[in-house]
């Protein structure tokens, strides 16, 4: 608490704040959890009395990351991840706000459960937790949830999590109703029947491994359907997690037609491809499956040009038992909160995507999508920040994982770009060095 009461100054730091196209050396002043001044001339009025001072030379200050797709295990699967453990993992990754998926037990499909998550987060989490609510009761794809009441309770997005609503008539009515509340419909686009038993990208690799493949069309067909319904209903639509170059083209055309659509991609699909599965490595079993290298590079390009709006971690904790199985029987999903930023920075170091665009896609862009007053360092906003050494190399080891589950797709990966300290409302919630310093 002393952090909050004592003003904080970070000096001579490179500030990257994409919301206002700022990339400059300057300072930040924080008091009472709020950014007072931020920029090259922030110290013109001098430092506040008694301020803790951090020397930011050589470092970069970013708005805290906003991750719009985080699976947790609370309630119902606390052995995989609690809200508190997800929060610790987020803080370690420079993520200060998370949108939690409703795929819990019970499902977040009514106000009481949503409030349980918010209350538990308030009591146990160090980062901001925003529960997404289900589009349909019990994620069953049959009856719509109370979108109005849930919105009033503070729910920022509606999604059936891993599931895709199969019935187009129901989806149309949900979109129509959601529009009246300006509610955001986030939808995973995978045709369960067309995917069938598919557990990896359909193609030569799957054929040699003898694994059933999921074809590209299983993603593209529901995506095209959804966008037509979004055009019809004029609701705010977000394709939660696309994985194909062709999906990028579908999104691009929809945006050109003026449809209120946006799209997200998981960091896994920007970093990895189907070859990483090798001989049945279940930590690379993801949904949608990892695709070809052509798909990966098409999505990187689409991130750079803005066709893809946001990057998500798609953090999906699974216990060891769920992964230590034959590939087709293993659970899908990988944790990702702690590797989101370092993995995304690979795109910067490789020169594939400008730094400002990468950061925007994980800060101001998701914040705008969810209607949050975060994801920027504009004075007056909560001081959610990540202090990063952009060039520091490190190896991500299992021992360092804060998440309760260890199913990372980046075990022993080499990264460049390390989170040194994370602040939520001016309070230090993570520090790479054990000394608190401020």
């Amino acid at each position, binding site marked *: 608490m002393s952090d909050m009461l004592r003003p904080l100054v970070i000096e001579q730091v490179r500030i990257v704040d994409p919301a206002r196209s700022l990339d400059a050396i300057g300072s930040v002043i924080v008091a009472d959890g709020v950014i007072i001044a931020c920029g090259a001339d922030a110290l013109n009025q001098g430092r506040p009395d008694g301020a803790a001072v951090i020397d930011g030379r050589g470092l970069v200050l970013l708005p805290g990351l906003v991750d719009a797709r985080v699976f947790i295990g609370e309630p119902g699967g606390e052995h995989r991840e609690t809200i508190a453990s997800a929060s610790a993992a987020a803080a370690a990754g420079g993520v200060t706000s998370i949108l939690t998926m409703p795929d819990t037990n019970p499902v977040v499909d009514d106000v009481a459960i949503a409030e349980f998550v918010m209350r538990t987060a308030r009591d146990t989490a160090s980062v901001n937790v925003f529960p997404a609510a289900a589009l349909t009761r019990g994620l069953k794809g049959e009856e719509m949830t109370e979108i109005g009441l849930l919105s009033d309770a503070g729910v920022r997005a509606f999604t059936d999590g891993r599931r895709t609503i199969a019935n187009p008539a129901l989806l149309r009515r949900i979109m129509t109703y959601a529009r009246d509340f300006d509610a955001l419909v986030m939808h995973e686009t995978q045709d369960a029947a067309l995917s069938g038993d598919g557990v990896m990208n*359909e*193609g*030569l690799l*799957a*054929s*040699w*491994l*003898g*694994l*059933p*493949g999921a*074809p590209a069309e299983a993603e593209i067909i529901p995506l095209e359907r959804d966008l037509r319904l979004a055009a019809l209903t004029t609701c705010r639509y977000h394709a939660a997690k696309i994985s194909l170059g062709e999906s990028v083209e579908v999104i691009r055309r929809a945006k050109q037609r003026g449809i209120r659509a946006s799209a997200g991609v998981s960091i896994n699909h920007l970093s990895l491809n189907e070859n990483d599965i090798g*001989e*049945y490595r279940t930590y690379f079993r993801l949904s949608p499956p990892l695709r070809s290298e052509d798909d990966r590079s098409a999505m990187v390009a689409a991130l750079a040009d803005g066709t893809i709006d946001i990057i998500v971690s798609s953090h999906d904790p699974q216990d060891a*038992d769920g992964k*230590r*199985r*034959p*590939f*087709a*029987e*293993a659970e899908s999903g990988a944790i990702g909160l702690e590797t989101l930023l370092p993995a995304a920075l690979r795109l910067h170091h490789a020169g594939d995507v400008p730094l400002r665009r990468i950061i925007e896609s994980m800060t101001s862009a998701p914040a705008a999508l969810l209607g949050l007053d975060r994801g920027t360092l504009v004075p007056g906003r909560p001081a959610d920040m990540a202090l990063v050494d952009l060039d520091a190399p490190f190896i991500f080891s299992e021992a360092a994982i804060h998440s309760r589950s260890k199913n990372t797709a980046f075990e022993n990966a080499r990264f460049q770009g390390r989170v040194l300290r994370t602040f939520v409302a001016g309070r230090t919630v993570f520090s790479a060095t054990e000394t608190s310093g401020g």
Partner: protein
Amino acid sequence: MSATSSFPAFSQRHLLGIARLRPHEIEQLIDLAEAEVAVGRRRDKKKSTLKGRTQINLFFEASTRTQASFELAGKRLGADVMNMSVANSSVKKGETLIDTAMTLNAMRPDILVVRHHSAGAVALLAQKVACSVVNAGDGAHEHPTQALLDALTIRRRKGRIAGLIVTICGDVLHSRVARSNILLLNALGAQVRVVAPSTLLPRGVEQMGVEVHRRMADGLKDADVVMMLRLQRERMAGSFVPSVREYFRYFGLDSDKLKIAKPDALVMHPGPMNRGVEIASEIADGPQSVIEEQVEMGVAVRMAVMEALIGGPEDAV
């Protein structure tokens, strides 16, 4: 042990798939199996190469013939053989695969022969045990001893593998036999074709080292060997092909279709056969059929494989 010392040491610990073998290793196993054929035809069929060794057959998927073949092979080599059939028990899910592996491992077997309905399961299990593991079929992935016994059968009849035209017909999509055979036959220089309706061909099949045909008339032309694959009953009636009679009409091997192949073409089938579905009875029992011989070669190949893996002197294991 001196009986086996004439064979060069086999360099691998497990037999998980043909994909992991180099051509000379494949040849080595086939040569070894050739010698075992004679053992099976003797009055005294017992060797002592694996005397005192423990072999466990762990079958997560029911298979009478493959399990019997491995059991007989082990017994002829003098091993103590135990059969664990988990296919019919309530044990199904993958987490028990690891548990079962750990339990069996604690019994200190020398070799585990494993069949599982899921691709990659046998390799996963091999990572968890201290003994040698033989893949007796994992999902739609590989069935290496079947490909080896097919190669042995072909070589004994034709004198070679290289340069032969081998046509594999039927459900390639779901077939581990097809995958292992495609790998092995290509490694030894055969020309491999597949013939099937497109619904039963895997994506990217044209890049798997085979010539792809959708008509038997095209695929069987000049073939030296015709390998028929089993079509599972649940795939016959409308899901992958419309009906048994339509499948038999276009893809079943009957005397008219067999005439398209070379006059001395061999007819093979990994069994169990669906007579009247993928193969006509008169062909299965006809003069060109080597289906029964395949079964005999199966025992020889499995003896060879187990001897190669664990038949060496104690220190080498």
